[in-house]
């Protein structure tokens, strides 16, 4: 599985959406991505990439695209 697939899967599992919808998501744009859902998403990302995210990065993760940027610049995940 590629890193992009792993990344997308985390959104799919956390929010119970399909992969295409996952790619368009922004924080609080759907009911499932509330603050509690956000914790589930970060846990899924931490598990998928075996990383420990800083609270500041968890707060900054405001969309699917922003999350990719954070993971690649701060945690060395290549997409």
């Amino acid at each position, binding site marked *: 599985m590629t890193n992009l697939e792993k990344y997308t899967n985390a959104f799919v599992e956390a929010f119970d959406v399909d992969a295409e919808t996952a790619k368009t998501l922004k924080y609080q744009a759907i009911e499932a991505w509330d603050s*509690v859902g956000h*914790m589930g998403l970060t*846990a899924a990302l*931490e*598990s998928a990439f075996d990383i*420990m995210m800083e*609270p500041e990065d968890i707060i900054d993760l405001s969309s699917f695209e922003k999350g990719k940027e954070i993971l690649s610049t701060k945690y060395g995940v290549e997409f």
Partner: protein
Amino acid sequence: MEKNVIITGSNRGIGKAILKKFAKEGCNIWACARSPKKEFEDELKEIADKNGVWIEPIYFDLTSSESIKTGFKQIWASKKKIDVLVNNAGIAFIDLFQLTPEQKIRETFEVNVFSVMTLTQLVLKMMTRQHSGAIVNMASIGGIDAYPAHCAYGASKAAVIGFTKALSSEMAQWGIRVNAVAPGATETDMIVSFENKSGGNLLKNCAMKRKAKPEEIANTVYFLSSDEAAFINGQVIRVDGGST
């Protein structure tokens, strides 16, 4: 109960009694302390062998969040379940408020409050995934009652109590319980600073007119973390021999 437990300030005082209690009950322990010492590690090995559990020393200084994170990464890397976190370590600065330097107030809050929040935030990463866990914070009756010379220490422990209650309401949805123990005067090194400033009045309000033994505090911490306390959440349990 066979659980994996993190205990801070486990090298002496109440923390050491907590470590021995959990080991005796069959728990595995990450024994957190400020810095490596051979006698400490020898003693951990002895306690682990005696009780058939593993005890791993983890070193970090609670005044540095970077140090806490580095220490926690060792626990994280083990990929083991974290069942219990005991935020025990603490410092006391006991003097009249007007004789309390700002630096001492900051130091007291750094160790007693901010480090507790930092470590708890890290541990919750695991506990929320597991959908289970118990956290026991060490408060003090000084965070509930009013005592002269307790402004910095008492305020820090009141903050611990506020944190405990708020967090308990937040984490219940993940099956995580958060409680606190509020000891009265307890026979450890720390009590010396209280005794020196109390003018002989240390046990004035204690109905049982004696100090607690560290083991008596440890028993309550253990109980709150155990499944016997499965429906106790957001509480602060005084262990102070009753007040008059």
